[in-house]
């Protein structure tokens, strides 16, 4: 298993998408910093912005592009036959790939926290940095689950970067609309908007100020757990199905 993960990581060496992902993660806080300094925001504002724009928008988009290239790699480069003739156990291979994607998402969260800390230092407010740290780790973990539908979508598409790219964008945008608005999401739609669900579940810890509207749209633990389990269940079935199809072609 470890060999598989190391192998998958090696395959990313010198790849453009790897470099892009890293640069995007590191560059993203800069515009946030500029806005923060221009408006003399405090820590709560900085953190709210990083969660909204970074964790819930930039990160899913980047991770989607990354996962797309990562999952299409073998077929694109015709190395599937080499993997199959070893033979690499399909289940373990899928797990290794998912673990690498989870790793990227964790790295992204760490960068976000670090960025909020740096920006905080600049504006002279680093209050609540530890609680922010814990919340962001939590977001990172929950976001891994929330991105499963996107990965299911990627795996079940033919290797068409443009179509899949557009679908990823639509998925992230739909979620983002509900992150920025205070419209209630009907219960049946929650499993399909998992990024928004994560955001609304953790709203009390990330919002600058809890208003009555925000309280109304905050998800209870039960609602959230139900929606997430539903998302995970459906996604995992489709991921296994799609990966099996790609693998045995």
């Amino acid at each position, binding site marked *: 298993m470890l060999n598989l993960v190391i192998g998958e990581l090696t*395959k990313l060496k010198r790849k453009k998408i790897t470099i892009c992902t890293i640069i995007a993660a590191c560059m993203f806080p800069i515009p946030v910093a500029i806005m923060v300094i221009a408006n003399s925001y405090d820590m709560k504002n900085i953190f709210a912005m990083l969660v909204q724009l970074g964790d819930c928008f930039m990160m899913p988009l980047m991770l989607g592009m990354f996962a797309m290239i990562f999952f299409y790699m073998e077929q694109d*480069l*015709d190395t599937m036959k080499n993997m199959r003739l070893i033979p690499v156990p399909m289940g373990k291979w899928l797990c290794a790939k998912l673990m690498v994607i989870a790793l990227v998402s964790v790295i992204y969260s760490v960068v976000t926290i670090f960025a909020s800390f740096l920006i905080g230092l600049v504006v002279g407010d680093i209050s609540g940095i530890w609680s922010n740290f814990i919340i962001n780790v939590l977001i990172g973990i929950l976001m891994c689950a929330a991105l499963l539908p996107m990965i299911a979508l990627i795996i079940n598409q033919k290797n068409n970067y443009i179509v899949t790219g557009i679908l990823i964008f639509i998925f992230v945008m739909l979620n983002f609309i509900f992150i920025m608005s205070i419209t209630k999401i009907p219960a049946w739609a929650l499993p399909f908007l998992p990024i928004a669900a994560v955001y609304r579940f953790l709203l009390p810890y990330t919002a600058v100020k809890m208003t009555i509207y925000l309280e109304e749209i905050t998800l209870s633990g039960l609602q959230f757990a139900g929606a997430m389990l539903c998302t995970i269940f459906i996604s995992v079935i489709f991921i296994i199905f799609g990966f099996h199809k790609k693998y045995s072609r």
Partner: protein
Amino acid sequence: MSDYVIETKQLTKVYGDQTAVNAVNLHVKKGQIYGLLGRNGAGKTTIMKMILGLTSITSGEANVFGKNIKGQEKRVYPRIGAIIETPGFYPNLTGTENLEIFARLRGTAAPNAVKNALEVVGLPYKDKKLFGKYSLGMKQRLGIANAILHDPELLILDEPTNGLDPIGIAEVRNFIKDLSASRGKTILISSHILSEIQLLADDIGIIDHGVLLEESSMSELEKKNRKYILLQVSDVPKAALILERQFQQKNYSVQDDHTLRLYDTSLDMGAVNKELVVQDVTVISSGLCNDTLEDYFKRITGGEGIA
């Protein structure tokens, strides 16, 4: 238990309404080099993919080491090294890095496996050049290196000399021969180049339009097709008539307006020449010839032959 490392029985593959492989019975003996010869699109790759279980079998069966591969991949694949069509590797990695990934995943490979394999195919170890910058010949060599990485008993090589220059082809041929001769490996190799197979193989299978037209040992094939009598005469139809009537010869072919080929080399040519002259057919020349395998290939495929 058969002695064959690979044996197929009525192996058939149908793509849509096209029968790419049609009831093929291959027999690859242990320790031998088996050359699968066929033109582009003959079905060589498809046969190899079915043997390896990389594509489904429409009907018939393919046994490797006496077993059906399906469900046995974990036990059988480590005993096989294969290249199928173009070599597939990661272009952002060096040749060594590529092989190290696969060696690591195999787990069974010896510590020096990557270095040794690269040495065999004549590529530098720990070179900085990325696979994406490799020439076609280098790519092909890396593909072969990957196939021999884990020291398998059976090699299945689909056109391994594709894209190599003449010296490269000779090199690859030599080490393939060596793998069989000194290390006892069984090798199934495909090619569309007749001379290549002729120089390399112990056994040969000729495939055309998915049908295995002939399967025999190389030496037998050479014996069987080597000799014929080339007869040049002024009047071919008349000569043919005389051969059939007076000498009971049916095993001949007409090459052109003035030339006949007689495949019964035990024929008394003195008598034939005399009789032809008597019957007013001028004999321009007559003599024993060696048929090349290429002619033979042309004849049995009924086509243009092969370069």
